């Protein structure tokens, strides 16, 4: 990867190019549902249930899945905006938490951009002050932080002399999202977690912002975690893709493998559900029936089995392990059909 050459020149780099910038291990978060007369817990939402992945330096990991699959919760657990029940995050070889990297330091290295560009900016601050806010909190002198904010505005394509003193409500959705990206860059982070950053934008503006993200990644030596429900956008921007279903990883691998040779039936259905742009190639049957099941009481065994056309007895009995077909496979799927000796009639022998 040519991006890794750039990364080795980064003085902040400790582990070297082979050390993943982020390792997430067995992240878990269950939310209790309170109800009844005494407001006792009456159930749990298994929002994220044992998610593990790693992100290499300079790469973009795309996370896709339908609403309620836990992709946004995963991002928030990663940033510790929500406290995980269990699991660990390792940043460039150093565990985050007591005895390791301090939370404040991790949050300086990982920044986040949210879907709602308006809600994530202070409506009473001119945008240059919003961008300069975090650096001043971290001890950068005000004048210097403001000068840098203007540079960043220019970097995201907003002329500072025209935009610096404007308030968020004076900007369009696309411009506001550029401001949020500039603000995320203000602390010179190494990772940006983008949670549906273009989903609220019109198509013509979405393309502008995607092009900008590609440029910034190169210019600022960034690593992205890009969360989206839009399969086309994820394919465009990602090097590797992680598919989530009901709080778990269904499949993960290089973008060409996930889109070209998906192994999990859910990934295949998701890809087949994309409407075609060609009216001559209309779909006749939907690839999946029904809605994603409720994450409060997920099905036993494989969580996808209730919607899967290939489900057999083994799928209800045992949870499929996320594994590759060969040792050290970069493409992993959690499906009994992809696991030799799983007992599924379609499993490789």
């Amino acid at each position, binding site marked *: 990867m040519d991006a890794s050459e750039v990364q080795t020149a980064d003085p902040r780099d400790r582990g070297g190019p082979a050390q993943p910038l982020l390792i997430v291990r067995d992240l878990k978060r269950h939310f209790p549902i309170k109800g009844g007369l005494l407001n006792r817990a009456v159930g749990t939402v298994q929002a994220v249930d044992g998610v593990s992945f790693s992100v290499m330096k300079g790469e973009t990991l795309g996370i896709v899945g*339908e*609403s309620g699959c836990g992709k946004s919760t995963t991002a928030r657990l990663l940033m510790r905006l929500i406290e995980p029940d269990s699991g660990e995050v390792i940043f460039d070889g150093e565990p985050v938490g007591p005895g390791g990297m301090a939370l404040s330091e991790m949050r300086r290295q990982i920044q986040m951009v949210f879907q709602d560009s308006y809600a994530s900016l202070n409506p009473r601050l001119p945008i240059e002050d919003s961008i300069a806010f975090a650096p001043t909190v971290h001890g950068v002198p005000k004048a210097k932080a403001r000068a840098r904010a203007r540079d960043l505005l220019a970097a995201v394509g907003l002329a500072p002399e025209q935009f610096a003193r404007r308030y968020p409500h004076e900007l*369009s959705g*696309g*411009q506001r999202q550029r401001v949020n990206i500039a603000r995320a860059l203000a602390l010179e982070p190494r990772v940006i977690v983008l949670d549906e950053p273009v989903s609220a934008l*019109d*198509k*013509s*503006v*979405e*393309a*502008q912002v*995607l*092009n900008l993200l*590609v440029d910034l990644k190169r210019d600022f030596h960034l690593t992205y975690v890009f969360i989206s*429900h*839009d*399969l*086309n*956008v994820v*394919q*465009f921007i990602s090097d590797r893709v992680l598919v989530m279903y009901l709080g778990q990883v269904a499949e993960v691998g290089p*973008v060409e493998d996930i*889109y070209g040779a998906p192994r999990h039936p859910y990934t295949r*259905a*998701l890809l087949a*559900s*994309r*409407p*075609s*742009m*060609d*009216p*001559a190639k*209309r*779909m*006749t*049957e*939907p*690839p*999946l*029936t*029904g*809605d*994603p099941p*409720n994450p409060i009481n997920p099905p036993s065994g494989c969580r996808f089995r209730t919607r899967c056309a290939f489900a057999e007895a083994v799928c209800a009995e045992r949870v499929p392990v996320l594994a590759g077909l060969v040792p050290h496979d970069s493409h992993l799927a959690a499906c009994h059909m992809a696991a030799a000796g799983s007992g599924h009639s379609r499993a490789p022998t």
Partner: protein
Amino acid sequence: MTTETLEQRPAAATTPLVSVRDMTVKFVSKEATVHAVNGVSFSLDPGEVLVILGESGSGKSVSLRALMRLLPARKTVIGGSITVAGQDVLAMDERQLEDLRGGQVAMIFQEPMTALDPVFTIGTQIAETIIRHEGVSRAAADARALELLELVQIPSAKRRLSNYPHELSGGLRQRAMIAIALACRPKLLLADEPTTALDATVQIQILLLLRKLQQELGMGVIFVTHDLGVAGEIADRVAVMYAGRFVEEGPVSEVMLRPLHPYTQGLMGSTVHAGLRGTRLAAIPGAPPNLARLPEGCAFAPRCASVEEACRVAVPDERRPIPIHMARCIRV
């Protein structure tokens, strides 16, 4: 309107179901006048599917609501003429509008949770519509409600009749809303981004269901969306809307495969699809115009790569290289 008129099949298939001429919609307030729709003309045949494609603020939803006069009466000025199923919508009084809405014309929305009444069961809401428009007994309406839930492929329909909206998943809620819309066998279904809030695997189910029902029931459908893929799956004809005008209109295959207007071409170019990885997206620069301060001439001119002096002088006329395909661009 009585039941007899509802049961009448269109006498002559040649008369259009919807005929709109020079429709304008203005929102007037003390601060500003917003020109949301600026001269839209089209007609829709019975059983035809027209998709209006546009970005936010293009006037697509306002146009749709104007057809049923669902806009706040005090602030809205609608001009031109709107005829639906032979009736002049702009001349109707409140009572006639109530007969029209949910009777001959029905509408489905993006967010079923706000369109459905949270305190009544799905069955009650469907039956109520039928009783209001067709004057049948409660028992007959209930029986028809069950038929309708089966028609929209809701599993265990009988049990679902007694569910409240919050007890249903997003996809089932959208199906229930479609069932209510179809309760009085409308001739025209207006759909305002009904699949936008749904997950990918559910969106395609609802699209295919709507297409199937439209064909079986022979309804005319006007479907508003920002999603080119949706248009590709469901449209007979596509109209592309920009700053309150149709800038291009034609059969779906013509518009999608041989777009004439630079805006349509830009929209196709900036829509991310497979095979664009590693390339630079052909984004349209800038943003859509403010509808309170529209530019003179072609509203797309400030963003257009091939703009000429003449573009800024007057709004381009409709041009038709072939009779069925229209674009408002002087270069066509």
